[in-house]
């Protein structure tokens, strides 16, 4: 048994009893992403996520920037001077070039730091094993924002909202057995929704195929239940190192170290108490 003091992340599916369902998630296969951003648009429309500025970033075709309170799917664009696959030519002019595109999303971690640290209980795990912020409970303390190892959550500053928002894995759709908006809109099945077990199997087979096809840098990211966050509910097939996509290479659920932190604090608090008592020695003058 782990030493983690998680009060909620281990509660699924037991706490749901008969209502518990198989854990659902996303497999985002970036090898077939074409960067159309249909996922971003479908997400915004379905979830009524407000417009948060139309900016020109000059960062390839990415004018979205990153995940946040008002962006729950984000398509990254990376331009590399490198052939797409090992063995591909350098092009007629000798200038190799490839695009990497990837639709990022909340990872719905097995061990969710955001859920652990939330002081109000606003962040919950659903009967589908997904992680959702209850907007009628969140008081905008912002603790989950730096606690997330992926920088997914953020505080909505527009319209004086003040609460934290993120991907719900379309809880209003998925609880009714409907595919989330982004996966529904994806024209290449780069975004796949389904029971996590099935997705992991499918992803393993897909990785073998992609590697055999010469994508030497291909790897699965977040499919391993033994990683630092216990595996993602929304994992990826990437074609390069995670950092290239702005993802942490070895994310860890910060509350994993919480017992150690409380021990350190107890030692310091004890030292403070003993120190204060010791200051009485020598009299009042």
């Amino acid at each position, binding site marked *: 048994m782990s030493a983690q*003091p*998680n*009060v909620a992340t281990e509660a699924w599916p037991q706490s749901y009893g008969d209502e518990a369902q198989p854990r659902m998630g996303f497999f985002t296969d970036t090898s077939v992403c074409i960067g159309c951003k249909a996922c971003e648009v479908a997400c915004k429309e379905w979830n009524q996520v407000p417009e948060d500025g139309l900016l020109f970033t000059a960062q390839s075709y990415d004018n979205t*920037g*990153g995940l946040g309170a008002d962006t729950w799917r984000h398509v990254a664009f990376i331009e590399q001077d490198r052939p797409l696959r090992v063995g591909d030519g350098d092009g007629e002019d000798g200038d190799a070039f490839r695009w990497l595109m990837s639709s990022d999303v909340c990872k719905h971690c097995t061990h969710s*730091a955001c859920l652990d*640290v939330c*002081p*109000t209980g*606003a962040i919950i795990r659903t009967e589908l094993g997904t992680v959702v912020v209850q907007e009628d*409970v*969140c*008081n*905008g*303390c*912002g*603790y989950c*924002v*730096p606690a997330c*190892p*992926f*920088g997914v959550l*953020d505080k909505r500053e527009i319209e004086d909202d003040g*609460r*934290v928002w993120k991907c719900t894995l379309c809880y209003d759709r998925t609880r009714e057995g409907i595919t989330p908006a982004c996966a529904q809109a994806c024209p290449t099945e780069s975004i796949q929704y389904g029971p996590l077990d099935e997705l992991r199997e499918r992803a393993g087979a897909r990785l073998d195929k992609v590697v055999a096809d010469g994508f*030497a*840098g291909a790897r699965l990211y977040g499919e391993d239940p033994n990683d630092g966050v216990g595996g993602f509910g929304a994992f990826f097939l990437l074609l*390069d*190192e995670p*950092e*290239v*996509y*702005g*993802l*942490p*290479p*070895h*994310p860890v659920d*910060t*509350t994993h*170290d*919480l017992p*150690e*932190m409380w021990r*350190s*604090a107890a*030692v*310091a*608090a*004890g030292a*403070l*108490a003993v*120190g*204060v008592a010791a*200051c*009485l020695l*020598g*009299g*009042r*003058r």
Partner: protein
Amino acid sequence: MTERPTEGYYGRPIVKPPVWKNEVAWYLFTGGLAGGSSALGLAARASGNRPLARSTTFTAAAALTASPILLIKDLGRPERFVNMLRVVKPSSPMNVGTWILTVAGTAAGAAAACEATDVLPRVRAVAQGVAGLLGPALATYTAVLVSDTAVPVWHEARAELPLVFASGAAASAGAAAVILTPSDAAGPARRMMLAGAVGELAATTAMERRLGALGEPYHRGKAGAFARAAKAATAAGAALGAVSGRRRVTGRLAAGLVFGGAVAERFAVFRAGFQSAEDPRYVVMSQRGRS
């Protein structure tokens, strides 16, 4: 075959910087001041040092009045402050801290009210006992709160941060008591101030040594400026305090320096967290080093 760009994706942060405003940095300070003062107040009361017990009781109550105001002001939905008290959640240091703050604040307020009006001595004794015993927890839980994030400069300093905060609490509470207590009753406060100041310098040094390259924010930008100011003021205050003894003016000048140093140290830790999260290199560095 593929290089690992430490600058990540167009240099954008991997971990989101905190959304906390300066109110939270001030609270990191006032929580420590209150915790240290409550503990010193209980010790002073137990040893029959009435003037010192009196001044520290008022300092604790003042700091514990400011603390919830600062915290509630920082919330995106201040009217939902009470939502923190709808659950008891050990996995959330902020939830645990809210309970500590609520109980300690109520106790310190009651103790100060009894002290000021000189009524209900038994209530005062119980309230002072509760506040005093919770003081060390109040002064150190905030270190757990910031360590329990994905911010490298905070998370990787999780062993030392409670010591930094505890010693800073001792330094500031001692200094406040030196300023507010007649000097012939301030002996324990002076010793606490000096021990706290020396401890703060030692703990920050140990923290920076542990962090290594990840501690770079403490030498750069705003965090660097605060850290340098904190070290200079704390060291100068400790040195002056050690030689000035019971002298009224220089003793209080030394206390002012130590007090200011403790404020600056909390702001250094606070700002360092932002700088650490804003630069993706630190996240990559901490995780590639771990793998």
